């Protein structure tokens, strides 16, 4: 286990975070939730930017307090709202990274910057949002970190750039012993990348599921009033009243497809699962 959070708590006026989650070695774990659900706070606690009020964080099988600065160099991070000073150029950043990380691969970093059309001599203040986002991910993957903690790494990127970044992350995972914890608003990114997904709402984890299971076995049943009444509800997780009747989230899509062939059943997706988990009601 590269990272585990056990009842990690942080309280602010009007908001409290209480999460437990794990990131396994060799896995990409996604954290998804609406704005203000607690994703960034969770990431900040993991990175030591915010002090937790209670709970346990274990990193590389050690308590967080025992993590040395050398071991901290095994974490690569991107934050959605923070980065290098805008008055620096990439050339200067290369110099800084060389002196900060023992395992910084300068040649690979420069090659990738060129591949992603990132200018070396321009100041960051002249960069577009997309260029800055790319630079953050390239930086986090440049020093052989064992764990990447990526908060909204694809925000502000166009489809092509997003795809390249996701490809870069897949390539990063080809080396054994690495893991990624990633958050994104773009659910399709997580669906195609993550091995498992945590859903967070109002500071609490509302669902943890393997991505393949979520996509293959979950489903959204759309039933009118009559169909809903006749429905076997033992595998229904959440129900939401709609204009046409009810939408029901199930983790046994095959069961309903087989026994109720007349029902409209959508395949599971991160979007409809999270919507139902947050807005739906338990029977």
């Amino acid at each position, binding site marked *: 286990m590269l990272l585990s959070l056990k009842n990690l708590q942080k309280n602010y006026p009007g908001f409290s975070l209480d999460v437990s989650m794990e990131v396994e070695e060799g896995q990409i774990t996604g954290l998804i939730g609406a704005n203000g659900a607690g994703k960034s706070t969770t990431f900040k606690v993991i990175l030591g930017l915010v002090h937790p009020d209670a709970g346990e964080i274990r990193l590389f099988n050690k308590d967080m307090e025992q993590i040395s600065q*050398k071991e901290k160099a095994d974490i690569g991070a991107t934050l959605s709202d923070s980065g290098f000073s805008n008055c620096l150029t990439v050339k200067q950043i290369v110099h800084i990274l060389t002196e900060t990380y023992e395992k910084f691969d300068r040649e690979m970093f420069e090659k990738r910057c060129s591949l992603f059309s990132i200018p070396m001599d321009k100041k960051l203040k002249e960069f577009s949002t997309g260029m800055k986002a790319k630079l953050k991910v390239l930086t986090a993957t440049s020093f052989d970190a064992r764990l990447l903690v990526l908060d909204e790494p694809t925000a502000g990127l166009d489809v092509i750039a997003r795809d390249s970044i996701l490809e870069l992350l897949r390539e990063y995972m080809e080396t054994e012993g690495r893991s990624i914890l990633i958050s994104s608003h773009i659910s399709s990114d997580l669906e195609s990348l993550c091995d498992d997904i945590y859903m967070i709402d109002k500071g609490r984890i509302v669902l943890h599921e393997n991505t393949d299971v979520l996509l293959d076995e979950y489903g959204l049943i759309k039933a009118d009033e009559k169909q809903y009444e006749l429905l076997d509800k033992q595998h229904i997780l959440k129900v939401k009243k709609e204009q046409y009747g009810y939408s029901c989230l199930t983790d046994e899509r095959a069961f309903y497809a087989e026994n109720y062939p007349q029902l409209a059943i959508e395949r599971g997706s991160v979007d409809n699962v999270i919507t139902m988990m947050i807005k739906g009601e338990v029977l």
Partner: protein
Amino acid sequence: MKGMFVKDMEIMRGNMKTFIGVYIIAIFCFLSTSAGPSFLISYVSVLAAVMALNTIASDDMDNGMPYIFTFPISRKEYVKEKYLLGAGMVTVLWAVAVAIAIGVNASGYRMVSWEELIASAAVGLFLAVFANAVVFPIQLKYGSSTGRLVLLVLVFGIMAVGWIGVELCQKMKVDFSGLKNLGLRIWNLGIPVCLAMLFVLMLLMVLISCTISIKIMEKKEY
């Protein structure tokens, strides 16, 4: 910590043209006006302190601080690096200013007594160290923009308290002759002892300031 030093050097390199311009103006003023060595040394030393302080403002700009702390550097190390940078910048540029003042004095272009030169050098260094010791914790606690406001309030507050104090002392006819005698007695101990005392005072100021800054940073959340 080395990476942080490099970062700060790179940030300062970006502002180098402005700083060099300001230094040239200071040297020009010193050579072409009646400004004495105390002006040159104090000006250059305090500006060196400002250069170091400016790196905190750059780190803080555009919410850059959280990203810095994802690097393998503890908050304690960050603070230590800033104080070391401040001390280094002030020492080097103060030494350059003192060397210029000594050169000008030795050339006979404009003579002041060596005692005055030594006193000017000591005061210049003290002012720069004092500036760093006071402003570092304020800037780290409040950030660069609010920090400037807090500093302004603090300076005016001290001035107001000082003025009220003087007025009150005059009205109450407080006798300061004891304090004057103490100053004279210290001066009579000789220049080396005075300098050593000043050095210890500066060291204490920096140590107290650094301890406060570390506590501020360790409590801070991003």
